[in-house]
């Protein structure tokens, strides 16, 4: 596995041209992270305790936002090994998105008040 990476590495660095130095505003990102965490806590604290299981499955689906990174890695013009890693990550994220949202909705459908309950209920 590692040797494969190395072969790839030398071949690609020869092919790669000049690169502009990255200008990433890390402090800006950190800022966003801290603020988003506070918003998250504020919102989550008010979630009904009845719904903690669906909450966990919906946040699970939302954290599968890793799908964004996976698409960028799997679909880019990259060496095969890299794309395979990306494709596996994409598969894992997509599974979480599909099953996370679907099971959340399935559970939420079950929460009924007395009036909305089918007469006698199903057995």
């Amino acid at each position, binding site marked *: *596995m*590692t040797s494969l*990476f*190395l072969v790839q*590495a030398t071949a690609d*660095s020869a092919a790669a041209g000049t690169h502009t130095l*990255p200008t990433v505003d*890390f402090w800006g990102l950190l800022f966003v*992270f801290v603020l988003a*965490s506070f918003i*998250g*806590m504020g919102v*989550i604290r008010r*979630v*009904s*305790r*009845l*719904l*903690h*299981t*669906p*909450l*966990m*499955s*919906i*946040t*699970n*689906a939302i*954290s599968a*936002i*890793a*799908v*964004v990174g*996976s698409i*960028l*890695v*799997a*679909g880019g013009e*990259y*060496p095969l090994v*890299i794309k395979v*890693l*990306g494709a*596996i*990550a994409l*598969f*894992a994220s*997509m*599974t*979480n998105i*599909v099953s996370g*949202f*679907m*099971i959340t909705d399935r559970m*939420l459908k079950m*929460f*009924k008040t007395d009036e909305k*309950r089918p007469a006698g*209920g199903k*057995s």
Partner: protein
Amino acid sequence: MMHALTQLAYILATALFIFALHWMNTPATARKGVYAGVAGMTIAVLVTWVQPSVVTHLWIILPIIAGFVVGIPLARVPLTAVPQRTALSHAFGGLAAGLVGTAKYYLWFSEGPENLTAFRMIAIIVEILLGFLTFTGSLMAAGKLQEVKWIPQRPVTYPGQNLMNLLLLCVAVGLGAALVLHPTATWAPQLFPAIIVMALVFGVLLIIPIGGADMPTVIAILNAYAGLAAVAMGFVLDNKLLITAGALDGSSGLILAIIMCKAMNRSFSNVLFGAFGQVQLTKGAGEQKSYKGETPEGAAQILEQASLVVIVPGYGMAVAQAQHKVRELYDQLKKRGVTVKFAIHPVAGRMPGHMNVLLAEADIPYTDLVEMDEINPDMPQCDVCLVVGANDVVNPAARSDTSSPIYGMPIIDADKARSVFAIKRSKNPGFAGIDNELYFADKTWMLFGDAKAVIGELVKQLAGESGMH
């Protein structure tokens, strides 16, 4: 132009995610939240897909199809299997983060080493550590919950366990630091997999000492880790959407974990390093106490005359799949004008909110599912408290016995009810090995048998009597 549109779409997706969680604050609007979440995710996927750097579409289409093929059956598991499904999806989340971090590192190592700045390397190391330890840790948790044969159910402990785990973590972090300082050294590509292996091993070691009762907390912690791994990926890829969505998930896991810990009167470190479920084996063989048994006929008569019945469900109800029978009992009692409430302890079951979902599945209106703190003041007015497969959460030792391992844990005050019926599978003392004083109290009668069968018998008694009238 493309950049501006992308950023706008990502902001929209973030807003939709926040609304998705906001609408979860009541069951009435919660389904709207799912639609908002789906909309946000669809926008995020499509906008990312049309980025100019994305050129090979087959590599995207195939994994997406595979994701649907596996995801749809995973969404249809029985609700009693929801804890392990959740753990499994944390594992997938961790795996995705770990793999993307790995891919990005090797990519930059070969194609643009100047991208491997210190800040970015720190983010990559955090991403793969959290990602891979969440992966194996969650797989272990899922295996324990699913009761897979080759994964020990009982907590596994050995001398020096915590020290060893800590040491392993320190070594992994130390090697990570070396990589941060020398990301392009010739030995760096060999060191990277070593860190991955350590994270994988650490995940396993972290979960093997954890017992079933601690699963709600541990699942919540793993949830937070999976979210934080996505945040780290956002730092690596310079993508704010990943950071915001990951932070929402991370804070959700954190808050749930805090709620679970409070509900057990324990600290994070105590849950993770305490190996609950081992300590109390010394006690027990002392005084011989006796239970009072009761027949379903007798119990049905008493239930019928009650005006307030409180049912305390626990993991035993889930194991016996008794929720539908419980609903039949609920209906029978309601028909007679008896008020029936369910007392839900935050850690009842194997994940946060587990009991609520099972009872909702059985068509019990959520307005009758009452939290511990709200039901406790009403317990002295309760005529009959029916305990269905719950044990620790109604054990008065938590209030009085300082030597008990559950001392200090808030409990449902079942012992303050006028009478108590407890359904229990066998006469062996305590499921978890902890004696429960409640079962020996004067006002407690035991109904021995499988929860589903016993409640079915109660329903039959009640229904039979109404037939005769």
